[in-house]
């Protein structure tokens, strides 16, 4: 960050004293289609470019065209930004910009605000022609006051009308300008970012949006007493800022994966959008298959005949790909599968976060189907784990499943710019003659590893089959061979597991309570644990990256704590329910695995509200657990 000191590029004539904040949580909520997300994404990008730590998360409406001014129509974004690193979406918001008085109630239902939250609301509804709307507006304003919100009624439409006949398109840029003044954003960077997001539009469109941006900025300067500064520490480190799905796309390309075969599904698809834009320039191609099954089959075909391919999907797609994943395990075809998890079962909650596919990807296949499963915990890991996944898939000749989720998919965070390396790229396809006498499944008995012949390698001709087969790829139902080959495929996991280190404990190596997490919840968990530690509580956490095989040494770590509890975003029975006993309780997915793996009585705290976990909620649970200990 060359100029990332948080100072204003545009001087503010009226207010010279800005209140310095360590961090703030801002939400912008509008009717679907009014562009709150675009304004927020731009605000987040500008803040990151100024050197702030940032995490953004989208508030996505449930339907495609919900009726306006309804709770279902609420579309928006949360931006948590601060002076230091931000790893999660945080607790209640400090500021809300609302385009009408109804949409905030979606978030009020989700306890997104607190007493003292500042609400900047479009005031045009107070003078609407419809008596019903006018009354609804004034009722809501009264309610906001009663809830302890600090309400500012803003003439957004009125001000925008001075510049555009259709403020529904463009109000978001005016709001972005207003917020830019409130938080002292660098207007040069903001203008550049607006130019970038409208890069495919005409100059007239860009200019109109820039005018609205400036008008919002000027209006806030002249009319609002809200004026903050969120300083950013000087840093020489080169950063990039993107969401998790974009990071996956970059990881795919940096790994030299030349084919992504996919079928559209939320929330995975935006990775494919990014790939569609740029993978051809980096020597790859994207195939949109006719269905999820064909998508994975196509990827397996391409992997079989050349370079390891990737298929990307979400829960329902994983369900459909199950049979092919079993084939890839059985026939030992390297493959990278990315699962951007959403709420389930069935179609479930397409746009919301859950970590519910863990057991499905591990045990979804009939028969024993060992495979590597790993989960990135940050946007940066979304990038690097794809490169890792390809290498594991190639070396161990098996599918590798990468579990991201909706929280990482849409979360935007800056991270150090990857310095791309040639060794990350897939090597060229081996077309040299196959070693004479070598078998297509010449398993090493100690590790289970073998080399695969690739079409084009003379002398390596074999017929891959999903049936039980010998070293020579011959179909066989001999009992000894089936037993032995199942063991060899399983052995590969043990071999890979030997290369893993025990996870690092966040906090003391021993204590009262150990929280175990995996995937996207790391930021929220570690923030909660750090806050608890600051209060003197003896709590630590570990965050697992590998689900299969599990990282070593877990039992040793667990034994040093009085209690171990996973924190996950998936379903578990509550012991508060009179029907539920410790015996019949169904545990959260990682807890289930860890109990079996370590024989430690691992508890779990999990839910399926479809929301990212909040550090405050986790902290409250930690306190409760320690009180009961």
């Amino acid at each position, binding site marked *: 960050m060359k100029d990332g000191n948080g100072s204003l590029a545009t001087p503010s004539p009226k207010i010279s004293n800005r209140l310095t904040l360590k961090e703030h949580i801002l939400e912008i909520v509008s009717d679907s289609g009014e562009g709150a997300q675009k304004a927020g994404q731009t605000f987040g990008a500008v803040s990151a470019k100024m050197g702030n730590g940032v995490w953004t998360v989208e508030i996505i409406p449930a339907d495609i065209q919900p009726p306006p001014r309804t709770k279902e129509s609420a579309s928006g974004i949360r931006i948590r930004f601060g002076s230091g690193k931000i790893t999660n979406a945080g607790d209640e918001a400090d500021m809300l910009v609302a385009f009408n008085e109804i949409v905030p109630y979606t978030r009020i239902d989700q306890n997104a605000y607190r007493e003292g939250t500042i609400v900047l609301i479009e005031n045009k509804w107070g003078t609407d022609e419809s008596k019903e709307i006018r009354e609804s507006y004034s009722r809501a304003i009264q309610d906001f006051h009663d809830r302890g919100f600090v309400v500012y009624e803003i003439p957004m439409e009125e001000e925008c009308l001075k510049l555009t006949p259709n403020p529904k398109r463009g109000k978001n840029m005016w709001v972005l300008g207003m917020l830019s003044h409130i938080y002292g954003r660098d207007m040069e960077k903001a203008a550049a970012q607006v130019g970038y997001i409208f890069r495919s539009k005409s100059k007239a469109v860009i200019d109109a949006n820039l005018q609205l941006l400036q008008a919002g900025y000027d209006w806030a300067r002249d009319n609002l007493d809200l004026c903050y500064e969120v300083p950013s520490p000087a840093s020489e480190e080169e950063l*990039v800022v993107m969401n998790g799905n974009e990071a996956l796309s970059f990881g795919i390309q940096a790994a030299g994966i030349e084919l992504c075969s996919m079928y559209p599904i939320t929330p995975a698809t935006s990775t494919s959008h990014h790939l569609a834009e740029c993978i051809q320039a980096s020597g790859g191609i994207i195939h949109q298959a006719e269905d999820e099954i064909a998508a994975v089959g*196509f990827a397996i*075909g391409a*992997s*079989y005949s050349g370079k390891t391919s990737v298929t990307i999907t979400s829960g329902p797609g994983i369900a459909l790909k199950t049979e092919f994943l079993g084939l890839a395990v059985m026939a030992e075809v390297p493959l990278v599968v990315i699962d951007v998890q959403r709420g389930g079962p069935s179609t479930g909650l397409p746009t919301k976060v859950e970590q519910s596919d863990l057991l499905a990807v591990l045990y979804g296949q009939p028969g024993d189907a060992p495979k590597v499963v790993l989960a990135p915990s940050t946007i940066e890991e979304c990038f690097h784990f794809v490169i890792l996944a390809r290498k594991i898939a190639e070396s161990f000749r098996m599918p590798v499943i990468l579990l991201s989720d909706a929280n990482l998919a849409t979360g935007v965070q800056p991270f150090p710019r990857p310095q791309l390396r040639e060794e990350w790229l897939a090597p060229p396809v081996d077309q040299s003659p196959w070693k004479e006498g070598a078998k297509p499944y010449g398993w090493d008995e100690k590790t289970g590893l073998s080399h695969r012949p690739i079409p084009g390698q003379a002398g390596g*001709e*074999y017929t891959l089959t999903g049936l039980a087969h010998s070293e020579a790829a011959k179909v066989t139902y001999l009992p000894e061979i089936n037993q032995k080959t199942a063991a060899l495929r399983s052995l590969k996991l043990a071999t890979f597991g030997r290369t893993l280190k025990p996870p690092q404990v966040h906090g003391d190596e021993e204590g009262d309570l150990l929280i175990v997490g995996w995937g996207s919840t790391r930021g929220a968990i570690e923030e909660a644990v750090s806050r608890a530690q600051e209060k003197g509580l003896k709590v630590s956490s570990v965050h697992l990256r590998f689900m299969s095989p599990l990282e070593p040494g877990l039992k040793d770590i667990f034994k040093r704590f009085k209690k171990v509890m996973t924190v996950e975003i998936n379903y578990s029975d509550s012991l508060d329910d009179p029907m539920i006993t410790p015996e019949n309780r169904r545990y959260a997915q990682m807890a289930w695995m860890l109990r079996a793996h370590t024989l430690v009585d691992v508890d779990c705290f999990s839910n399926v509200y479809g929301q990212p976990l909040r550090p405050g909620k986790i902290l409250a649970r930690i306190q409760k657990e320690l009180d009961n200990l």
Partner: protein
Amino acid sequence: MFGIKQDFICELPKKYYTLSDYEKGVARWCPGCGDHAVLSSVQRLCREEQLPPEKTVFVSGIGCSSRFPHYMNTYGFHGLHGRAFPVACGVKFRRPDLNVFVITGDGDCCSIGAGAWIHAIRYNMDITTIMFDNQIYGMTKKQTSPTSRLGTISNTHPTGSVLPPVNPLQTSLGMSNVSFVAQTADWVPGHLFATIKAAYEHPGFAFIKVIMRCSKFMGPLVEEMTTNRDAISILTHENGIQPDEGTLKAYKHHHVHDPSDINAARELAEDKEVSYLGLFYQNKEALRYDIYGAHNLGFTPEDKIAAVNAQLDKYAV
């Protein structure tokens, strides 16, 4: 020999492949099964075309027909029921140098794999597909197939099947971007070979439906199909498949059909009385997805890194 020194030979002659270079193991199909005839014809094609075994891939699904790749001494992929097409398309997409064949059956193609099948037609990749249509499930022991005639007695319909069959020719000809549709029969070896050869030479997705005998489960239908020569007519045209003399002599009914005429092809496909053997439709100009798939092969590591870095610049803080 003849006083010519080895040193003067610029290029050593390439290996000449014989039939045995393509043969592997003993096919475990029933005696009298039509699959044997197709296997022989395909091995003959490989030898005539001198296809390098290492550059040739047979992809199949599940069923009697799908055991085929195990009997070819080439690369093979015996995958999942109904899913040969996506795998084969994936094999071909980035490997234009490979000769790709799909071997499938009526159940594999027209029932469980129907979705993949029609899209494979539309992708029009340079793949030769041979669909073994014996109108019955053989491997799982006589269940009704999607192409079973109405009233077929089977283990799933002991009193006779209750739905009219799928017409694979009609379905193929109804799919957009279709480029080659032909029909032949396993017991007409000259025609079978000429059809497979024409399909192999076709630049695009060639779909052959082979009318097959199932000696085990077809019952009297085998006899009827192979002996009633009035139920078969040979398609002839200068742009069609050129059958051998023997076929033309054995089958007296001939029908001149221009394979560029898709409407006439559809009418022939719908004829319930007569099975036409020959080329129903061919369009060498149809758009090919495999050409798109292979258009940007061979980037150097430097090219790739430069391209990703250029993209990353846009996300730089």
